[in-house]
């Protein structure tokens, strides 16, 4: 995955942090202080249309060439999360219980083209 820098327009991961104080949620979320959400943005040209891990594969390279040369048959590619991790939260629920849970797939760690 590539992190966005400068004015790069290709598919990359942009960091985005939501501070719970900013949104007035610090009274019910005890920990952490915010959410490193992050998101994927940027263009995915046809020749990049594959998961990053498959790029070295001969077959995926052939498929990409076919896609790039046969624009009519190919679907558009999107810049999407390819790696995510859970968000651990300690919070008060509606009955003032204190709950700790790991919400899966909440933090975007890497992006790639579909």
């Amino acid at each position, binding site marked *: 995955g590539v992190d966005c820098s400068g004015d790069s327009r290709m598919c990359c991961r942009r960091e985005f942090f939501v501070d719970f104080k900013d949104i007035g949620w610090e009274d019910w979320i005890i920990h952490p202080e915010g*959410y490193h*959400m992050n998101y994927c943005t940027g263009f995915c040209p046809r020749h990049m249309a594959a998961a990053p891990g498959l790029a070295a594969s001969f077959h995926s390279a052939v498929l990409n060439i076919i896609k790039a040369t046969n624009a009519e048959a190919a679907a558009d590619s999107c*810049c999407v999360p390819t790696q995510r991790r859970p*968000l651990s*939260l300690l919070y008060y629920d509606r009955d*003032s219980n204190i*709950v*700790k849970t790991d919400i899966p797939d909440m933090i975007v760690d890497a992006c790639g083209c579909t």
Partner: protein
Amino acid sequence: APKGMRCPTCGLAALASSTQQDVLKALAKQSILSKLRLPDRPNITQPVPRGALLTALHRLHAQHTDTTEPSRIPQDGGTPHPRPRVGLQEYEILSFAESGSSTSRSVLLHFRFTRDLSGSTEILQATLYLFWAVPGLGTHPVTVRLLQPGPTGLNATVTSETQLQVPRSGWTTLDVGAAVQQLFGQGSQKLTVELEVPEARGSPLLDDSSDSRWPFVAAQARARAAHRVRRR
């Protein structure tokens, strides 16, 4: 994306920076609430004192380091067996006691569990933590009863009764997993614990002013697996 359709995040780039921030914040809020199965953010009217929270977390952490692998409570209340590792969302819940009516011989404690998880969550383990304030020497007998309200909320029934001999002041734990699981299974949220001493010796618990020794129940829960049908 199908041919001619825009990617989900394409629209975001076209927005002004401040609008982009607002959209992402709204998305973050919506995402957290939906994953926690909350219709909206909880309104905290009675936050737990910091001392009580820290004590509960400390005791919970100490228990985790003592037991390498938490056990699963079987439906029949028999011997616990190891918990299978699956990729379902898990929860740890701390419910602090609300004081009910008390006499010179007995104290009622109410534990209200989350209605957001009730019914859709399986209780793996639950432990009641009580801090005894025992005056003088010698052991002190205490009867602990777990009560569940009837269907109308009244006429509580005793689901279990345990006799304890308290030798000194300090924390005691009691396994209440089966009772809490039964409670969740019935869609109920309130567990009542009655503590009774044989003679009028006053409350066996410390008074409300001792925040860091507030009784609590620590429960481990897991979202129930959705029923799956596979076709080959």
